[in-house]
């Protein structure tokens, strides 16, 4: 048992640290909501290109698809070190984590040639057109229709919660191509050009007041069949293979999110010269948050042991996000409790604004990428082997399922 890196891991980490120290600082941004989105995107593009040119994008992707052919642990190590800086990486998470792997796993060699390199360098931004107003957790219930018309498909429908759709050049699209079969079987995956006629992106303001989310309306959008990813009717399978790549995040806390050390600092600042542990409720709260917050970090390290052997993280990685998101919410709330009425002052750079930001954002984290409830189902069914929920729509053709 050893928390330290193996000699190979240590030398890779050292190389990464050295490179980041030289290259990351010019791209750093203040934590929180970007004040000027264009400036933020400009920095994000620059950082993505800098990383790609140095071989730190697609680290564990095969060389044949344009990746670095590195090990999964190298990918994890790089991101651990990258998180020490406040870098504008968020716009590329979906593309790097889900879309490009879908392209190079299920697309043609020509698509790989065309999209992977520009995507890696950040020249093109990708979004993921999956969720719909009536298909969130029940993703296989998407209603957006793609109807075959000669060599094209004609797409009609509405997507929602699409991060960075307004900035993206391309998106992967899960659409229903056959409503006559049960819902998981009638789906097909495509990629679409976000500038194509009939694609309309409308920003959604979140409770934070920002607008990185969108709803996307698709009206008679024509997609050539050559933009299909995988076979007709295989869309569900295609969407699941991308999960393997997504799990390499292994439920880590967002960079810059507060931790137990921040609570202690906050208590110190407020206690002044008094004993910090005289802060009401602090002992019990520190203990509770330490057990969950540090517990998640340690559990990630256990998962990394498997990754460093070359294993792919399994469904048990779900516990990371489940615990992390709720603990972040509870910790932020406790920090705000400590501040009393000072917590109300949410002006930028006020003492409370950081915790108010994470208090709001954590409520989104508990929903995005699998709600707490879905994650509990994943753990119960796929880790503990308990029976699946009864699904009344399972074997029924999609167009015979009742809808609200």
């Amino acid at each position, binding site marked *: *048992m*050893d*928390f*330290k*890196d*193996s000699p190979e*891991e240590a030398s890779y980490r050292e190389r990464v640290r050295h490179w980041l120290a030289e290259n990351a600082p010019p791209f750093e941004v203040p934590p929180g909501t970007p004040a000027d989105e264009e400036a933020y995107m400009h920095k994000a593009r620059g950082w993505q290109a800098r990383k790609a040119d140095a071989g730190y994008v697609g680290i564990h992707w095969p060389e044949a698809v344009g990746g670095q052919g590195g090990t999964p*642990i190298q990918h994890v190590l790089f991101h651990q070190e990258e998180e020490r800086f406040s870098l504008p990486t968020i716009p590329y998470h979906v593309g790097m984590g889900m879309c490009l792997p879908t392209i190079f796993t299920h697309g043609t060699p020509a698509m790989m040639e065309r999209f992977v390199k520009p995507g890696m360098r950040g020249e093109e931004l990708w979004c993921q057109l999956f969720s719909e107003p009536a298909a969130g957790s029940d993703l296989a219930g998407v209603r957006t229709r793609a109807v075959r018309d000669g060599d094209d498909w004609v797409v009609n429908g509405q997507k929602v919660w699409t991060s960075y759709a307004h900035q993206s050049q391309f998106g992967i699209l899960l659409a229903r191509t056959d409503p006559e079969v049960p819902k998981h079987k009638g789906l097909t995956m495509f990629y679409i050009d976000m500038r194509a006629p009939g694609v309309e992106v409308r920003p959604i303001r979140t409770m934070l007041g920002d607008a990185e989310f969108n709803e996307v309306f698709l009206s008679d959008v024509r997609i050539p069949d050559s933009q299909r990813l995988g076979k007709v009717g295989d869309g569900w399978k295609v969407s699941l293979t991308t999960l393997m790549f997504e799990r390499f995040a292994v439920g880590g806390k967002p960079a810059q999110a507060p*931790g*137990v*050390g921040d609570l*202690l600092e906050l208590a110190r600042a407020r206690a002044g010269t008094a004993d*910090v*542990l005289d802060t009401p409720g*602090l*002992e*019990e709260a*520190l*203990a*509770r948050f*330490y*057990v*969950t917050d*540090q*517990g*998640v*970090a*340690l*559990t990630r*390290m*256990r998962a*990394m*042991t498997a990754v*460093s052997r070359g294993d792919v993280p399994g469904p*048990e990685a779900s*516990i990371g996000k*489940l*615990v992390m998101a709720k603990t972040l919410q509870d910790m932020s709330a406790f920090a705000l409790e400590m501040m009393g009425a000072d917590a109300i002052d949410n002006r930028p750079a006020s003492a409370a604004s950081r915790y108010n930001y994470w208090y709001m954002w954590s409520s989104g984290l508990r929903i995005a990428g699998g709600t707490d*409830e879905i*994650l*509990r*189902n994943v*753990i*119960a*069914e796929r*880790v*503990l*082997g*308990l*029976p*699946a*929920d*009864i699904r009344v729509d399972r074997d029924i053709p999609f167009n015979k399922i009742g809808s609200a």
Partner: protein
Amino acid sequence: MNFEFSDEQEELRRQARRLLADGLAKARGALDHGASHDAALWRQIVDMGWPAAAIPEQQGGLGLGPLELCVLAEETGRTLAPVPFATSVLHATEALKLCPADPLAGATLGRLAEGGAIATVAFAEEGGGRWDAIPAARVEAGRLTGVKTAVAEGSYAGFAVVSARAADDEDGYGWWLVDLDAPGVTRTGVEAIDCVRRHATLAFDRVPAARLGGAGEGAGLVRDLLDRAAVYDAFEQLGGAEAALAMTIDYVKTRQAFGRPVAGYQAVKHKLADLYVKVQLARSHAYYGAWALLNDVPELPVCAAGARLAATDAFTAAAEESVQLHGGIGFTWESDCQLYYRRARLLAAALGSRAVWSRRLAHALVAHGVGVA
């Protein structure tokens, strides 16, 4: 990075599992016959060298490290096997190892390594019930007088490490080694919450006592022992929590209600998912504690308290919900649920309450920061 046990340690785990396969039945057997422990199983354990495992070779032990003890603690915790392993090996032996320069401690470790003797620790007294409270027990002219409560295996252990004050202890207190078969020792069996692990109250009336370590060192020694015991007990708790969870999962898969297995209901599934999460967090913290013990790092108090609290949370929740999810059958005497429920409560109390450990953790975090991970 390697955050798991070695192949050799996993082999030790497999041996332990084989040996303890019917530990739960033996716990039930000892309970039904009013036996203090299963002497035959303990002899097998001695033959396999478990008491000697972490004793240094120069004292006749096997010179293995804390990780081997963690593995064995987890496996004994899993089956509730009625043997004095936790008390004698994880607590008393470790206490003696904290007095490395003491010739008496060394000689006693030799006896423990041979497996001929069973030892216990006697720190808690009436009223506070805390290991680290300043004791009322006194030693005058080499003779101990006082009363110690909640002494595990106290009805039959051969000797005990006892906390007591002498004239030269000033504000502190010391540790003393006492032969429990000496005249002046009165053992009174206690009907304990955990009816498998036997406890006793020990009254000492001018019983010969030999000092371990230096005068006034007791408080510091107890502090260090608590950190070590917290890690070992966390593994014992982890084993118990996993067993209670596994037993419950098996049951809800079999038990039918409203025409299908109870395991298919989301309320049940989500409860079990949450228990799994608690057990995983406890396992991660326990490993962190084991690593800290192995490497003797300065933040051991942080890691130990984290391991203790996470494991107490996990075992308490797993034991409580296992009764709940078994329904009425879980509330019966015949159900094994009650044995885990009782053991969880015993282990939650023995080293000090949640509040005590939250306080220790908070102080350690203030002193050391949040840690390496």
